C-alpha cells in the first residue's frame, strides 16, 4: 500500500490532471527533490520558490484572487509563524469583502514531532490554526484519508490548510487508494523518483480515481462503549494501539475517533460517542494551554455536562517553548503511548 507521502503525491497528480490545479510550489517542492518529504515528486506543475514563506503565502493569495487553483507548501510548520498575519487575511477576505472574493487555495505543511526534529522541526500548528476563522483545517492520519481530504481541499472554494503529520508520511496504509496498483513495489517503481540523477526520470502514474473524504466528517476508527478517545494526526494511531492493548489486557472497550477535520469539526459524531460512553479524552500534540482540545472540552461541558461520568480530559504537548532533541525529552513533552494509557486508566478509574 502507498505511504502517506505517496498518497499526497497521487492526490496532487489527480488535482493537476482533473481538478485544474495549475501551480504547486514551495521550498524544494520542484524537481529534482520533489519536497523534503518526497510529497511532490514527479508532478507537472511544481516549482521551487525563494526562501520566503511570506512570499509563498502571498503568491497563493494572489493566485486565489486571480481565481486559480494552487497548492502551496510551507516546508515545516515551524516556519509558518511569520505568515500568521497573511493567514488571518486569507481567512478574512471573503468576510471583509462581503463575499465578493473567495480564495480557493490549499496550503499544506508538515507538523508535529516524532522524527527527532528537536526545537525547530517538531512544532504543531493545529491549535493555532483552529484560531483562523475563514479557513478549513484538516489533518489525516492514514494515506487514504490524506488522498481523499486533499482532493476535497482542492475542490473546496474556501482556503484549506492541510496539515501533514510528518511522522506518518512514511507509514503505509491498510487500504488501497482508488487506482493504486496493489503491488507496493510496482507503485514505488512507477512514482518514486530514483536515487542519483533524475534528469530523465518520468513517473508512470496509475489511473487514479476520484475519492472524497468530506471536510468536517470524523471517522470512528474503533467502536467501544466505556470511554471515547478523540484525536488526529500523529497521536491517532497511538491512541488506537493503546485502545487495542487495553482491550487485550484488561478487557476495556474504548471508542477511538479520528477527527480528521479540525475546523469545521464533526461535533455530532463526537457528541453521540461521548453521550454513550460518558468519558472522554482528547489527544493532540500542540501545546496544552489554549489548546483546541480545551475548546472541545468546553463544548463537551456545555452540551454534555450532565451526561459525563468523569471529567473530560485533554492530553496535549507540555506548555514549554520547545521540544528537546534527546528522545526522552521529546517523549516527556508530547503524547506517546505510555502517557495516553495512563490518562485513559485515570479517567476510567474516576468515580463520579
Amino acid at each position, binding site marked *: 500500500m502507498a505511504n502517506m507521502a505517496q498518497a499526497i503525491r497521487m492526490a496532487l497528480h489527480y488535482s493537476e490532471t482533473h481538478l485544474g490545479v495549475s501551480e504547486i510550489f514551495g521550498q524544494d517542492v520542484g524537481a529534482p527533490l520533489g519536497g523534503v518529504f518526497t510529497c511532490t515528486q514527479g508532478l507537472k506543475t511544481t516549482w521551487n520558490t525563494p526562501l520566503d514563506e511570506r512570499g509563498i503565502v502571498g*503568491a497563493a493569495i*494572489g493566485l486565489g484572487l486571480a481565481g486559480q487553483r494552487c497548492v502551496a507548501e510551507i516546508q515545516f510548520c515551524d516556519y509558518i509563524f511569520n505568515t500568521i498575519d497573511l493567514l488571518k*487575511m486569507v481567512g478574512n477576505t*471573503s468576510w*471583509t*469583502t462581503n463575499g465578493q472574493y473567495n480564495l480557493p487555495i490549499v496550503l499544506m505543511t508538515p507538523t508535529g514531532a516524532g522524527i527527532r526534529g528537536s526545537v525547530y522541526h517538531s512544532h504543531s500548528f493545529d491549535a493555532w490554526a483552529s484560531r483562523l*476563522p475563514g479557513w478549513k483545517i484538516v489533518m489525516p492520519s492514514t494515506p487514504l484519508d490524506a488522498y481523499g481530504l486533499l482532493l476535497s481541499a482542492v475542490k473546496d472554494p474556501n482556503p484549506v490548510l492541510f496539515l501533514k503529520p510528518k511522522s506518518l508520511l512514511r507509514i503505509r496504509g491498510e487500504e488501497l487508494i482508488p487506482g493504486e496498483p496493489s503491488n507496493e513495489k510496482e507503485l514505488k517503481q512507477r512514482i518514486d523518483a530514483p536515487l542519483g540523477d533524475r534528469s530523465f526520470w518520468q513517473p508512470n502514474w496509475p489511473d487514479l480515481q476520484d475519492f472524497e473524504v468530506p471536510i468536517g466528517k470524523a471517522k470512528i476508527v474503533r467502536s467501544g462503549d466505556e470511554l471515547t478517545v478523540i484525536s488526529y494526526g500523529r497521536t491517532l494511531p497511538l491512541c488506537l494501539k493503546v485502545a487495542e492493548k487495553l482491550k487485550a489486557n484488561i478487557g476495556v472497550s474504548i471508542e477511538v475517533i479520528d477527527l480528521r477535520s479540525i475546523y469545521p469539526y464533526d461535533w*455530532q459524531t463526537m457528541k453521540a460517542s461521548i453521550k454513550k460512553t460518558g468519558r472522554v479524552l482528547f489527544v493532540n500534540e500542540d501545546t496544552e494551554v489554549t489548546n483546541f482540545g480545551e475548546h472541545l472540552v468546553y463544548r463537551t461541558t456545555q452540551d454534555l455536562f450532565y451526561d459525563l461520568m468523569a471529567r473530560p480530559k485533554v492530553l496535549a504537548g507540555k506548555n514549554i517553548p520547545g521540544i528537546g532533541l534527546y528522545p526522552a525529552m521529546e517523549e516527556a513533552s508530547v503524547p506517546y503511548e505510555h502517557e495516553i494509557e495512563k490518562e485513559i486508566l485515570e479517567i476510567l478509574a474516576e468515580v463520579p
Partner: protein
Amino acid sequence: MIQNQSSKLKVNSKKSSPKVQKIKAARTSKSTDDFMGLEASLVKQIFNLMLKSRVLEERLIKIYKAGEAFFWIGAPGEEAFGVPLGLLVNKGHGIKHDYLHLHYRATPTVVAMGMPMIDSIRLIMNKVTDPHTGGRNFSNHYCIPKWNVTPITSPIGVQYNFAIGTGLAQSKDQSSGISIITGGDAGTAESDFASCLIWSSRPERPLPLLITVQNNGWGISTAYSGQHGEKNIADRGKAFGIRTRLINGNDPIETYIALKEEMDYIRKERKPVLLEAYVSRLYGHSSASGANLDDKETDCLALFSQRIKDSGLMSNQDISELRNTFEAEARDAMETARQEAFPSPDSIWDHTYFQSENADWRNF
C-alpha cells in the same frame, strides 16, 4: 516639511525623462503649454477626474466631521498620480485584464476607472449598500471584482506580496494583462515590498508587475529623512535588475506619459518595473490627525488648474461650474446614502465561508 518638499522637487527636476523631452519636441502646439503632446480631450479628462476625486474626498471629510462616519483616510494630494493610473488600466475581470493591488489612497484611481461617488460614500458611512465591504470596513478600502480591483486592506505593504500571485497567473498567459501595486513610502520598510522585488525578478519566471510607491515624505508622524538610507526608494530595484523610474507625481502629464511608457514596456516584455512618484499629503494622515488642510504641501490640483487656465483649455468659470456639478453629485449621493440601511447585527456570521456556509461552531 517645507524643506522636505523642496528637496523632493530637486530630485524630480534632475530626473526628467529623456523620452518625455522627445515627445515634447516632436509636436508644435497653439498654446505655449502643449501638455507634452497629450490630446486636449485627454488633458481635460484628467483634470475633470482629478477634480471629481478631490471633491469626493472633501465630501468624505465633511461626512466624517459631521459625525456621520467614524474614520476617514483618503487621497487628496495624490490625484495627479492616481487619475492617470486609473485611465491607463486595462479594465476588466480576469487575467487578461490588469489587476490592481491598491492601498487606502486609491480614490483617484477608482474614480478614474468609473466608480460612482456614491459607492465611496456608502463605504465611509458603513451602509449595507456599500458594494465594497457591506459596511464592514473603513473608508477608501475599495474592492471591485468586476474590474480586478482586489480588496484594499489596512495592513501596510501586503498588497506588494499578493501581486506576486496575480503576476504569476498573468506570466503564463499570452495576453497583455499586468498587475499594478500602489503603496506609501514608509510602507516599503515592510517585508512584503522586498518579497515583491525578489519574486518579480526571479530569472526563472519574471513577473509583469508595475510596482509603484507614492512617496509623500511621511508615515503618519515619522519623516522620511530619518528612516531611509535610500536616496530614492526606486533604487532598491536596481540590484535585482528591475527597471526603475522616478517621477513627479504632482504633475499629471508627466505621470501619464511615464506610466504609459512603463506599462507598455511591462505589457510587452512581461517584466517588472519599479516606479516612485513624489506626491503630497494634503489633509494629513487621516481623521486621526484631524483631516485638516496642510497648506505647506504642494497641491497638484491647484497647480494643474492654473496650468489648464493658462493654456486656455478651460476658463475659471468652466472650472467652477465643473466643481459645482461634482459637489452637487457628492451631496446628492450623501443624501441618498443617508436614507439607506445599515448592516444588520446578525449578518456578522455571513461570508465567513463561501456562500455563507455555516461558520458558527454552535451549529456544527
